[in-house]
Protein backbone atom coordinates (compact mmCIF):
# COMPACT_ATOMS: atom_id res chain seq x y z
CA UNK A 1 0.00 0.00 0.00
CA UNK A 2 1.20 3.55 -0.75
CA UNK A 3 0.70 5.94 2.15
CA UNK A 4 1.36 9.68 2.28
CA UNK A 5 1.49 11.56 5.58
CA UNK A 6 1.15 15.36 5.57
CA UNK A 7 2.89 17.05 8.48
CA UNK A 8 3.74 20.51 9.76
CA UNK A 9 6.19 22.09 12.20
CA UNK A 10 4.38 24.40 14.65
CA UNK A 11 5.17 26.24 17.91
CA UNK A 12 5.08 23.98 20.97
CA UNK A 13 1.88 24.35 23.05
CA UNK A 14 3.96 25.95 25.77
CA UNK A 15 5.75 28.46 23.50
CA UNK A 16 4.97 32.11 24.15
CA UNK A 17 3.05 33.74 21.32
CA UNK A 18 2.34 37.46 21.42
CA UNK A 19 1.02 40.12 19.10
CA UNK A 20 3.92 42.30 17.96
CA UNK A 21 1.95 44.45 15.54
CA UNK A 22 -1.29 44.09 13.62
CA UNK A 23 0.52 42.09 10.96
CA UNK A 24 3.20 40.37 13.02
CA UNK A 25 3.53 37.91 15.88
CA UNK A 26 6.33 37.35 18.33
CA UNK A 27 6.74 33.57 18.58
CA UNK A 28 9.15 31.94 21.00
CA UNK A 29 11.58 29.70 19.14
CA UNK A 30 10.26 26.33 20.35
CA UNK A 31 8.89 24.33 17.46
CA UNK A 32 7.69 20.75 17.28
CA UNK A 33 5.98 18.48 14.81
CA UNK A 34 2.26 19.21 15.30
CA UNK A 35 0.59 16.97 17.93
CA UNK A 36 -1.96 15.35 15.61
CA UNK A 37 0.61 14.95 12.83
CA UNK A 38 2.72 12.70 15.04
CA UNK A 39 -0.37 10.58 15.56
CA UNK A 40 -0.76 10.47 11.76
CA UNK A 41 2.84 9.29 11.40
CA UNK A 42 2.33 6.57 14.01
CA UNK A 43 -0.88 5.41 12.32
CA UNK A 44 1.03 4.99 9.06
CA UNK A 45 3.77 3.02 10.83
CA UNK A 46 1.13 0.77 12.40
CA UNK A 47 -0.25 -0.07 8.96
CA UNK A 48 3.24 -0.90 7.79
CA UNK A 49 3.60 -3.37 10.66
CA UNK A 50 0.71 -5.38 9.21
CA UNK A 51 1.67 -4.71 5.59
CA UNK A 52 5.47 -4.63 5.48
CA UNK A 53 5.46 -3.89 1.75
CA UNK A 54 3.79 -0.49 2.40
CA UNK A 55 5.65 2.59 1.24
CA UNK A 56 5.26 5.69 3.38
CA UNK A 57 6.16 9.21 2.25
CA UNK A 58 5.97 12.12 4.68
CA UNK A 59 5.49 15.53 3.09
CA UNK A 60 5.79 18.93 4.69
CA UNK A 61 5.11 22.12 2.74
CA UNK A 62 6.48 25.48 3.83
CA UNK A 63 9.66 27.29 4.74
CA UNK A 64 12.89 25.99 6.28
CA UNK A 65 11.29 24.80 9.51
CA UNK A 66 9.36 22.14 7.56
CA UNK A 67 12.69 20.29 7.38
CA UNK A 68 12.60 19.77 11.16
CA UNK A 69 9.18 18.15 10.99
CA UNK A 70 10.54 15.79 8.35
CA UNK A 71 13.58 14.96 10.49
CA UNK A 72 11.16 14.03 13.23
CA UNK A 73 9.35 11.76 10.76
CA UNK A 74 12.66 10.07 9.88
CA UNK A 75 13.47 9.66 13.58
CA UNK A 76 10.09 8.00 14.09
CA UNK A 77 10.79 5.51 11.31
CA UNK A 78 9.73 6.98 7.98
CA UNK A 79 12.23 6.57 5.17
CA UNK A 80 10.92 8.76 2.39
CA UNK A 81 10.37 12.43 3.07
CA UNK A 82 9.83 15.50 0.89
CA UNK A 83 10.11 19.16 1.66
CA UNK A 84 7.72 20.99 -0.61
CA UNK A 85 8.11 24.64 -1.56
CA UNK A 86 9.74 27.51 0.29
CA UNK A 87 9.18 30.47 2.67
CA UNK A 88 6.58 31.94 0.29
CA UNK A 89 4.14 29.25 1.50
CA UNK A 90 4.30 30.53 5.08
CA UNK A 91 2.08 33.42 4.04
CA UNK A 92 -0.22 31.34 1.81
CA UNK A 93 -3.80 30.70 2.86
CA UNK A 94 -5.27 27.28 3.64
CA UNK A 95 -6.75 26.76 0.15
CA UNK A 96 -3.49 27.48 -1.62
CA UNK A 97 -1.52 25.17 0.64
CA UNK A 98 -4.01 22.39 0.03
CA UNK A 99 -3.75 23.03 -3.71
CA UNK A 100 0.05 22.78 -3.66
CA UNK A 101 -0.03 19.57 -1.61
CA UNK A 102 -2.72 18.06 -3.80
CA UNK A 103 -0.77 18.83 -6.97
CA UNK A 104 2.23 16.96 -5.54
CA UNK A 105 0.04 14.07 -4.35
CA UNK A 106 -1.31 13.64 -7.87
CA UNK A 107 2.18 12.53 -8.90
CA UNK A 108 2.65 10.18 -5.91
CA UNK A 109 -0.83 8.61 -6.20
CA UNK A 110 -1.08 7.26 -2.64
CA UNK A 111 -3.83 4.80 -1.68
CA UNK A 112 -4.15 6.41 1.72
CA UNK A 113 -3.34 9.97 2.78
CA UNK A 114 -3.15 10.71 6.52
CA UNK A 115 -3.06 14.23 8.03
CA UNK A 116 -3.43 15.50 11.56
CA UNK A 117 -6.94 16.60 12.58
CA UNK A 118 -5.77 20.19 12.78
CA UNK A 119 -2.46 22.04 12.95
CA UNK A 120 -1.23 23.36 16.28
CA UNK A 121 -0.74 26.88 14.94
CA UNK A 122 -3.67 28.08 12.81
CA UNK A 123 -6.06 25.37 14.08
CA UNK A 124 -7.84 25.41 10.70
CA UNK A 125 -8.64 21.70 10.34
CA UNK A 126 -8.98 22.42 6.62
CA UNK A 127 -5.97 21.00 4.79
CA UNK A 128 -7.12 17.37 4.77
CA UNK A 129 -10.69 17.95 3.55
CA UNK A 130 -9.51 20.47 0.94
CA UNK A 131 -6.82 18.15 -0.42
CA UNK A 132 -9.39 15.34 -0.65
CA UNK A 133 -11.85 17.55 -2.49
CA UNK A 134 -9.22 18.72 -4.95
CA UNK A 135 -8.20 15.11 -5.62
CA UNK A 136 -11.85 14.13 -5.80
CA UNK A 137 -11.50 11.30 -3.27
CA UNK A 138 -13.53 10.59 -0.10
CA UNK A 139 -12.24 11.65 3.27
CA UNK A 140 -13.09 11.14 6.93
CA UNK A 141 -12.05 13.67 9.58
CA UNK A 142 -11.04 12.96 13.19
CA UNK A 143 -10.53 9.20 12.82
CA UNK A 144 -10.02 7.38 16.14
CA UNK A 145 -9.51 3.83 14.90
CA UNK A 146 -8.34 2.03 11.78
CA UNK A 147 -9.21 -1.62 11.32
CA UNK A 148 -6.23 -3.93 11.20
CA UNK A 149 -8.08 -5.71 8.41
CA UNK A 150 -7.01 -3.10 5.85
CA UNK A 151 -6.17 -4.78 2.59
CA UNK A 152 -5.38 -3.53 -0.87
CA UNK A 153 -8.99 -2.61 -1.53
CA UNK A 154 -10.64 -1.31 1.58
CA UNK A 155 -10.38 -0.36 5.21
CA UNK A 156 -12.76 0.05 8.16
CA UNK A 157 -12.40 3.05 10.41
CA UNK A 158 -14.04 4.70 13.38
CA UNK A 159 -14.73 8.36 13.97
CA UNK A 160 -16.49 10.43 16.62
CA UNK A 161 -19.53 12.40 15.49
CA UNK A 162 -21.16 14.48 18.22
CA UNK A 163 -21.30 11.93 21.02
CA UNK A 164 -21.43 8.88 18.75
CA UNK A 165 -18.82 6.71 17.21
CA UNK A 166 -19.42 5.77 13.57
CA UNK A 167 -17.76 2.80 11.95
CA UNK A 168 -17.27 3.22 8.23
CA UNK A 169 -15.89 1.19 5.42
CA UNK A 170 -14.03 2.83 2.57
CA UNK A 171 -12.33 1.97 -0.66
CA UNK A 172 -8.99 3.46 -1.62
CA UNK A 173 -7.90 6.06 -2.40
CA UNK A 174 -8.98 7.71 0.81
CA UNK A 175 -7.85 10.58 3.02
CA UNK A 176 -8.23 10.56 6.78
CA UNK A 177 -7.33 13.06 9.49
CA UNK A 178 -5.96 11.72 12.76
CA UNK A 179 -7.69 12.31 16.11
CA UNK A 180 -6.16 11.48 19.49
CA UNK A 181 -6.59 7.76 20.10
CA UNK A 182 -5.88 6.67 16.52
CA UNK A 183 -2.31 5.77 17.48
CA UNK A 184 0.02 6.42 20.38
CA UNK A 185 3.23 8.14 19.17
CA UNK A 186 6.34 6.32 20.40
CA UNK A 187 9.57 7.84 21.61
CA UNK A 188 12.14 7.45 18.82
CA UNK A 189 15.25 5.40 19.53
CA UNK A 190 18.56 7.24 19.75
CA UNK A 191 19.97 5.54 16.64
CA UNK A 192 17.10 6.85 14.52
CA UNK A 193 17.40 10.33 15.98
CA UNK A 194 21.08 10.36 14.98
CA UNK A 195 20.20 9.08 11.54
CA UNK A 196 17.52 11.78 11.22
CA UNK A 197 19.98 14.52 12.14
CA UNK A 198 22.26 13.50 9.29
CA UNK A 199 19.55 12.68 6.78
CA UNK A 200 19.39 14.49 3.46
CA UNK A 201 15.93 16.02 3.23
CA UNK A 202 15.04 16.25 -0.46
CA UNK A 203 13.36 19.49 -1.51
CA UNK A 204 10.84 19.96 -4.30
CA UNK A 205 10.69 23.57 -5.50
CA UNK A 206 7.30 25.00 -6.39
CA UNK A 207 8.30 25.54 -10.04
CA UNK A 208 8.47 21.77 -10.47
CA UNK A 209 4.74 21.59 -9.82
CA UNK A 210 1.98 22.55 -12.18
CA UNK A 211 0.55 25.52 -10.25
CA UNK A 212 -1.09 27.59 -12.94
CA UNK A 213 -4.57 27.80 -11.44
CA UNK A 214 -4.63 31.43 -10.31
CA UNK A 215 -8.02 31.17 -8.65
CA UNK A 216 -6.43 29.06 -5.92
CA UNK A 217 -4.63 32.09 -4.59
CA UNK A 218 -5.51 34.84 -2.15
CA UNK A 219 -8.98 33.89 -0.94
CA UNK A 220 -8.29 34.96 2.63
CA UNK A 221 -6.87 38.30 3.64
CA UNK A 222 -5.50 38.75 7.14
CA UNK A 223 -6.72 42.05 8.45
CA UNK A 224 -4.93 41.99 11.78
CA UNK A 225 -3.85 40.03 14.80
CA UNK A 226 -5.51 40.97 18.05
CA UNK A 227 -4.92 40.31 21.73
CA UNK A 228 -7.43 37.88 23.27
CA UNK A 229 -9.94 39.41 25.67
CA UNK A 230 -8.44 39.47 29.17
CA UNK A 231 -10.15 37.82 32.05
CA UNK A 232 -10.52 40.14 35.04
CA UNK A 233 -8.65 39.22 38.24
CA UNK A 234 -10.07 36.20 39.99
CA UNK A 235 -12.45 36.85 42.87
CA UNK A 236 -11.59 34.36 45.62
CA UNK A 237 -14.30 33.20 48.04
CA UNK A 238 -13.54 34.43 51.56
CA UNK A 239 -16.00 32.54 53.74
CA UNK A 240 -14.91 29.31 55.43
CA UNK A 241 -16.33 25.96 54.35
CA UNK A 242 -19.27 25.34 53.95
CA UNK A 243 -20.41 28.98 53.64
CA UNK A 244 -17.98 29.51 50.74
CA UNK A 245 -20.18 27.34 48.52
CA UNK A 246 -23.21 29.54 49.22
CA UNK A 247 -21.03 32.63 48.69
CA UNK A 248 -20.03 31.39 45.25
CA UNK A 249 -23.56 30.57 44.16
CA UNK A 250 -24.73 33.96 45.39
CA UNK A 251 -22.16 35.67 43.13
CA UNK A 252 -23.27 33.59 40.16
CA UNK A 253 -26.95 34.25 40.78
CA UNK A 254 -26.43 37.96 41.38
CA UNK A 255 -24.52 38.32 38.09
CA UNK A 256 -27.10 36.39 36.12
CA UNK A 257 -24.73 33.53 35.32
CA UNK A 258 -27.16 30.94 36.67
Amino acid sequence: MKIAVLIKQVPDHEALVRVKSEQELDIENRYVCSFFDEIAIEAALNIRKNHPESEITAISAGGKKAVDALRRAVALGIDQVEHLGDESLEMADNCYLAYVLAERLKAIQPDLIICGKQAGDDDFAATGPMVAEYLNIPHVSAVVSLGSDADANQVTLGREVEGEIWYLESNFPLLITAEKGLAEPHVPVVMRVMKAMRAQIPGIPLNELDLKDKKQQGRLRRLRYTVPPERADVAMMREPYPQNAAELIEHLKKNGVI
Partner: protein
Amino acid sequence: MMCNEIWVIAEIRQGRLTRSTHQLLGAARKLADERNLQPAALLIGGEQVHAEELAQKIPLVLRIENSGLETYEAVRYAHALRQLIEKRGRPKVIMTAAGSSGVEFMPRVAMRCDSGYASYCVDLFWEGEEPACRRPVYGGKVYEELAISTVPAFFTVRPGVFPVPENLSETGRVETIPIDLPEDTGLRIIERKGISPGKKDLSEALCVVAGGRGMGTPENFKLLEKLAEVLDGAVGVSRAVVDAGWMPHDLQVGKSGKTVSPGLYIACGISGAIHHVLGMNTAKVVVAINKDPDALIFRNADYGLVGDALEVIPELIKAIKSKT
Protein backbone atom coordinates in the same frame (compact mmCIF):
# COMPACT_ATOMS: atom_id res chain seq x y z
CA MET B 1 -24.37 34.16 -10.75
CA MET B 2 -24.89 35.69 -7.33
CA CYS B 3 -27.83 35.84 -4.99
CA ASN B 4 -28.30 38.36 -2.22
CA GLU B 5 -28.58 35.82 0.56
CA ILE B 6 -26.80 34.59 3.69
CA TRP B 7 -27.24 30.90 4.43
CA VAL B 8 -27.13 29.14 7.76
CA ILE B 9 -26.85 25.37 7.48
CA ALA B 10 -29.14 24.04 10.19
CA GLU B 11 -28.11 21.10 12.36
CA ILE B 12 -30.48 18.56 13.81
CA ARG B 13 -29.48 16.32 16.65
CA GLN B 14 -31.68 13.82 18.40
CA GLY B 15 -34.58 15.08 16.34
CA ARG B 16 -34.16 18.73 17.34
CA LEU B 17 -32.59 21.86 15.93
CA THR B 18 -29.41 22.50 17.89
CA ARG B 19 -28.84 25.53 20.05
CA SER B 20 -25.96 26.54 17.74
CA THR B 21 -28.40 26.66 14.85
CA HIS B 22 -30.55 29.15 16.76
CA GLN B 23 -27.48 31.20 17.64
CA LEU B 24 -26.41 31.31 13.99
CA LEU B 25 -29.88 32.34 12.81
CA GLY B 26 -29.48 35.39 15.04
CA ALA B 27 -25.99 36.11 13.74
CA ALA B 28 -27.10 35.72 10.11
CA ARG B 29 -30.06 38.07 10.58
CA LYS B 30 -27.77 40.74 11.99
CA LEU B 31 -25.17 40.40 9.20
CA ALA B 32 -27.94 40.39 6.59
CA ASP B 33 -29.62 43.50 8.02
CA GLU B 34 -26.37 45.42 7.91
CA ARG B 35 -26.03 44.90 4.15
CA ASN B 36 -29.63 44.54 3.06
CA LEU B 37 -29.36 40.84 2.34
CA GLN B 38 -31.83 38.02 2.79
CA PRO B 39 -31.05 35.57 5.62
CA ALA B 40 -32.02 31.97 4.93
CA ALA B 41 -31.79 28.65 6.71
CA LEU B 42 -30.62 25.60 4.80
CA LEU B 43 -31.91 22.21 5.70
CA ILE B 44 -29.90 19.40 4.16
CA GLY B 45 -32.07 16.30 4.35
CA GLY B 46 -34.10 16.76 7.53
CA GLU B 47 -37.86 16.63 7.92
CA GLN B 48 -40.74 18.92 7.07
CA VAL B 49 -41.36 19.67 10.77
CA HIS B 50 -37.86 21.07 11.06
CA ALA B 51 -38.38 23.18 7.96
CA GLU B 52 -41.57 24.55 9.49
CA GLU B 53 -39.91 25.23 12.79
CA LEU B 54 -37.14 27.13 11.02
CA ALA B 55 -39.72 29.12 9.05
CA GLN B 56 -40.98 30.53 12.34
CA LYS B 57 -37.56 32.03 12.95
CA ILE B 58 -36.27 33.14 9.58
CA PRO B 59 -37.99 34.47 6.42
CA LEU B 60 -36.65 31.83 4.03
CA VAL B 61 -35.97 28.12 4.43
CA LEU B 62 -34.27 26.15 1.67
CA ARG B 63 -34.79 22.46 2.05
CA ILE B 64 -32.44 20.34 -0.03
CA GLU B 65 -34.08 17.06 -0.77
CA ASN B 66 -32.65 13.69 -1.71
CA SER B 67 -33.10 10.43 0.15
CA GLY B 68 -29.30 10.03 0.10
CA LEU B 69 -29.02 12.93 2.54
CA GLU B 70 -30.75 11.26 5.45
CA THR B 71 -27.43 10.33 6.99
CA TYR B 72 -24.67 12.86 7.08
CA GLU B 73 -21.66 12.36 4.84
CA ALA B 74 -19.14 15.01 3.84
CA VAL B 75 -18.86 14.12 0.15
CA ARG B 76 -22.65 14.08 -0.33
CA TYR B 77 -23.03 17.38 1.49
CA ALA B 78 -20.38 18.92 -0.76
CA HIS B 79 -22.25 17.70 -3.86
CA ALA B 80 -25.57 18.93 -2.52
CA LEU B 81 -24.35 22.40 -1.62
CA ARG B 82 -22.51 22.87 -4.87
CA GLN B 83 -25.69 22.04 -6.79
CA LEU B 84 -27.79 24.37 -4.70
CA ILE B 85 -25.30 27.16 -5.40
CA GLU B 86 -25.46 26.41 -9.13
CA LYS B 87 -29.26 26.57 -9.07
CA ARG B 88 -29.72 29.64 -6.88
CA GLY B 89 -26.54 31.60 -7.39
CA ARG B 90 -23.73 32.29 -4.97
CA PRO B 91 -24.86 33.68 -1.61
CA LYS B 92 -22.59 36.16 0.16
CA VAL B 93 -21.99 33.94 3.17
CA ILE B 94 -22.52 30.29 4.11
CA MET B 95 -22.11 29.41 7.78
CA THR B 96 -22.63 26.49 10.09
CA ALA B 97 -21.57 25.35 13.54
CA ALA B 98 -17.97 24.19 14.01
CA GLY B 99 -19.02 20.73 15.17
CA SER B 100 -17.43 17.52 13.99
CA SER B 101 -19.50 17.45 10.80
CA GLY B 102 -19.31 21.20 10.07
CA VAL B 103 -15.53 21.30 10.09
CA GLU B 104 -15.49 18.17 7.96
CA PHE B 105 -17.68 19.17 5.02
CA MET B 106 -17.31 22.97 4.88
CA PRO B 107 -13.66 23.02 3.71
CA ARG B 108 -14.62 20.54 0.97
CA VAL B 109 -17.44 22.72 -0.25
CA ALA B 110 -15.25 25.83 -0.14
CA MET B 111 -12.58 24.08 -2.22
CA ARG B 112 -15.22 22.89 -4.68
CA CYS B 113 -16.59 26.43 -5.03
CA ASP B 114 -13.10 27.97 -5.38
CA SER B 115 -13.82 30.10 -2.38
CA GLY B 116 -12.35 31.04 0.99
CA TYR B 117 -13.04 29.27 4.28
CA ALA B 118 -12.34 30.08 7.92
CA SER B 119 -13.02 27.70 10.82
CA TYR B 120 -13.81 28.01 14.54
CA CYS B 121 -14.82 31.67 14.25
CA VAL B 122 -15.82 33.53 17.42
CA ASP B 123 -17.22 36.59 15.65
CA LEU B 124 -18.45 37.55 12.18
CA PHE B 125 -18.58 41.09 10.81
CA TRP B 126 -18.29 43.17 7.65
CA GLU B 127 -14.99 44.68 6.66
CA GLY B 128 -16.29 47.15 4.07
CA GLU B 129 -18.19 44.91 1.66
CA GLU B 130 -16.26 41.76 2.56
CA PRO B 131 -17.45 39.28 5.16
CA ALA B 132 -14.83 38.84 7.88
CA CYS B 133 -14.28 36.82 11.02
CA ARG B 134 -12.32 36.75 14.22
CA ARG B 135 -10.82 33.41 15.23
CA PRO B 136 -8.39 32.18 17.88
CA VAL B 137 -5.02 30.89 16.66
CA TYR B 138 -2.09 29.28 18.49
CA GLY B 139 -4.60 27.68 20.82
CA GLY B 140 -6.19 31.03 21.68
CA LYS B 141 -2.98 32.78 22.71
CA VAL B 142 -3.75 35.34 20.01
CA TYR B 143 -6.70 36.05 17.70
CA GLU B 144 -6.67 36.81 14.00
CA GLU B 145 -9.17 38.67 11.87
CA LEU B 146 -9.59 37.49 8.29
CA ALA B 147 -11.62 38.87 5.41
CA ILE B 148 -12.80 36.60 2.62
CA SER B 149 -12.69 38.21 -0.79
CA THR B 150 -14.27 35.37 -2.78
CA VAL B 151 -18.00 34.63 -2.91
CA PRO B 152 -19.44 32.84 -1.05
CA ALA B 153 -17.45 33.21 2.16
CA PHE B 154 -17.54 29.98 4.16
CA PHE B 155 -17.43 30.06 7.96
CA THR B 156 -17.76 27.54 10.75
CA VAL B 157 -18.57 29.18 14.07
CA ARG B 158 -17.75 27.91 17.54
CA PRO B 159 -20.86 26.89 19.43
CA GLY B 160 -21.80 29.28 22.23
CA VAL B 161 -20.25 32.49 20.94
CA PHE B 162 -23.49 34.16 19.81
CA PRO B 163 -26.55 34.54 22.03
CA VAL B 164 -29.72 32.63 21.24
CA PRO B 165 -32.00 35.36 19.79
CA GLU B 166 -35.25 35.95 21.63
CA ASN B 167 -38.74 36.40 20.23
CA LEU B 168 -38.17 35.47 16.63
CA SER B 169 -41.60 35.17 15.11
CA GLU B 170 -41.67 34.91 11.36
CA THR B 171 -43.98 33.42 8.85
CA GLY B 172 -41.21 32.29 6.59
CA ARG B 173 -41.46 30.51 3.28
CA VAL B 174 -40.16 26.95 2.72
CA GLU B 175 -38.72 26.12 -0.70
CA THR B 176 -37.90 22.51 -1.42
CA ILE B 177 -35.08 21.94 -3.87
CA PRO B 178 -34.45 18.44 -5.20
CA ILE B 179 -30.86 17.62 -6.12
CA ASP B 180 -28.96 14.64 -7.56
CA LEU B 181 -26.29 12.71 -5.77
CA PRO B 182 -23.64 10.25 -6.90
CA GLU B 183 -24.68 6.64 -6.30
CA ASP B 184 -21.56 5.63 -4.46
CA THR B 185 -19.04 7.92 -2.79
CA GLY B 186 -16.76 5.07 -1.76
CA LEU B 187 -17.77 5.33 1.91
CA ARG B 188 -20.30 3.15 3.72
CA ILE B 189 -21.49 3.43 7.32
CA ILE B 190 -21.51 0.03 9.01
CA GLU B 191 -22.44 0.90 12.56
CA ARG B 192 -23.24 3.84 14.85
CA LYS B 193 -22.79 3.65 18.61
CA GLY B 194 -23.29 6.16 21.44
CA ILE B 195 -20.01 6.70 23.31
CA SER B 196 -21.35 8.27 26.47
CA PRO B 197 -25.05 7.39 26.32
CA GLY B 198 -27.36 9.77 28.11
CA LYS B 199 -24.69 12.45 28.49
CA LYS B 200 -25.32 15.97 27.29
CA ASP B 201 -23.33 17.17 24.32
CA LEU B 202 -20.24 18.94 25.62
CA SER B 203 -19.67 21.35 22.75
CA GLU B 204 -23.30 22.52 22.72
CA ALA B 205 -23.81 22.92 26.47
CA LEU B 206 -24.31 26.36 28.03
CA CYS B 207 -22.69 25.09 31.20
CA VAL B 208 -19.80 22.65 31.54
CA VAL B 209 -18.86 21.07 34.85
CA ALA B 210 -15.37 19.64 34.46
CA GLY B 211 -13.44 17.31 36.73
CA GLY B 212 -9.73 16.53 36.91
CA ARG B 213 -7.51 14.11 38.73
CA GLY B 214 -8.39 15.96 41.94
CA MET B 215 -11.77 14.19 41.84
CA GLY B 216 -9.88 11.21 43.22
CA THR B 217 -11.76 8.23 41.79
CA PRO B 218 -13.95 7.43 38.79
CA GLU B 219 -16.94 6.94 41.15
CA ASN B 220 -16.66 10.54 42.38
CA PHE B 221 -17.61 11.73 38.91
CA LYS B 222 -21.19 10.83 39.85
CA LEU B 223 -21.07 13.90 42.09
CA LEU B 224 -20.00 16.01 39.16
CA GLU B 225 -22.85 14.59 37.10
CA LYS B 226 -25.29 15.66 39.81
CA LEU B 227 -23.92 19.19 39.78
CA ALA B 228 -24.15 19.23 35.98
CA GLU B 229 -27.73 18.04 36.21
CA VAL B 230 -28.92 20.86 38.50
CA LEU B 231 -27.22 23.38 36.20
CA ASP B 232 -28.54 21.73 33.03
CA GLY B 233 -24.91 21.33 32.00
CA ALA B 234 -22.58 18.75 30.50
CA VAL B 235 -19.67 16.95 32.12
CA GLY B 236 -16.14 17.50 30.83
CA VAL B 237 -12.83 16.08 32.04
CA SER B 238 -9.09 16.74 31.91
CA ARG B 239 -6.71 14.55 30.02
CA ALA B 240 -5.27 13.08 33.22
CA VAL B 241 -8.71 11.58 33.83
CA VAL B 242 -8.88 10.12 30.31
CA ASP B 243 -5.33 8.76 30.52
CA ALA B 244 -6.18 7.08 33.82
CA GLY B 245 -9.09 5.37 32.06
CA TRP B 246 -11.68 6.99 34.39
CA MET B 247 -13.71 8.66 31.63
CA PRO B 248 -13.87 8.39 27.80
CA HIS B 249 -11.89 10.67 25.49
CA ASP B 250 -14.95 12.29 23.96
CA LEU B 251 -15.40 14.20 27.22
CA GLN B 252 -11.86 15.59 27.25
CA VAL B 253 -11.52 19.36 27.17
CA GLY B 254 -8.29 20.88 25.95
CA LYS B 255 -5.82 21.25 23.17
CA SER B 256 -5.92 17.55 22.31
CA GLY B 257 -9.61 17.21 23.14
CA LYS B 258 -12.62 19.47 22.67
CA THR B 259 -12.71 23.24 22.69
CA VAL B 260 -15.73 24.57 24.54
CA SER B 261 -17.20 28.07 24.87
CA PRO B 262 -20.01 27.72 27.42
CA GLY B 263 -21.49 30.57 29.43
CA LEU B 264 -20.25 28.91 32.62
CA TYR B 265 -17.30 26.53 33.11
CA ILE B 266 -16.72 25.00 36.54
CA ALA B 267 -13.30 23.33 36.93
CA CYS B 268 -13.14 20.92 39.87
CA GLY B 269 -9.78 19.45 40.87
CA ILE B 270 -8.10 20.58 37.65
CA SER B 271 -4.62 22.09 37.93
CA GLY B 272 -4.98 24.43 34.95
CA ALA B 273 -2.19 23.20 32.65
CA ILE B 274 -1.94 25.29 29.48
CA HIS B 275 -3.13 22.32 27.39
CA HIS B 276 -6.35 22.23 29.34
CA VAL B 277 -6.84 25.99 29.49
CA LEU B 278 -6.52 26.28 25.69
CA GLY B 279 -9.73 24.26 25.41
CA MET B 280 -11.84 26.40 27.74
CA ASN B 281 -10.44 29.93 27.83
CA THR B 282 -13.22 31.31 25.67
CA ALA B 283 -15.84 30.34 28.27
CA LYS B 284 -17.66 33.46 29.46
CA VAL B 285 -17.46 32.81 33.21
CA VAL B 286 -14.96 30.38 34.74
CA VAL B 287 -15.22 29.03 38.28
CA ALA B 288 -12.28 27.09 39.75
CA ILE B 289 -12.44 24.81 42.76
CA ASN B 290 -9.08 23.48 43.90
CA LYS B 291 -7.52 22.64 47.23
CA ASP B 292 -4.23 24.21 46.24
CA PRO B 293 -4.46 28.05 46.55
CA ASP B 294 -1.56 28.40 44.09
CA ALA B 295 -3.10 26.20 41.37
CA LEU B 296 -2.64 27.72 37.90
CA ILE B 297 -6.34 27.38 37.18
CA PHE B 298 -7.08 30.36 39.44
CA ARG B 299 -5.21 32.60 36.97
CA ASN B 300 -7.74 31.66 34.33
CA ALA B 301 -10.83 31.95 36.49
CA ASP B 302 -13.34 34.65 37.38
CA TYR B 303 -14.31 33.04 40.69
CA GLY B 304 -12.06 30.87 42.81
CA LEU B 305 -12.79 28.64 45.76
CA VAL B 306 -10.02 26.95 47.73
CA GLY B 307 -11.31 23.70 49.11
CA ASP B 308 -11.92 20.00 48.68
CA ALA B 309 -14.11 19.55 45.60
CA LEU B 310 -15.69 16.43 47.06
CA GLU B 311 -16.95 18.42 50.04
CA VAL B 312 -17.78 21.60 48.17
CA ILE B 313 -19.83 20.11 45.32
CA PRO B 314 -22.70 18.81 47.53
CA GLU B 315 -22.86 22.24 49.20
CA LEU B 316 -23.00 23.92 45.79
CA ILE B 317 -25.90 21.70 44.77
CA LYS B 318 -27.73 22.64 47.98
CA ALA B 319 -27.11 26.34 47.43
CA ILE B 320 -28.27 26.21 43.81
CA LYS B 321 -31.48 24.47 44.81
CA SER B 322 -32.26 26.93 47.63
CA LYS B 323 -34.54 29.67 46.38
CA THR B 324 -32.89 32.63 48.10
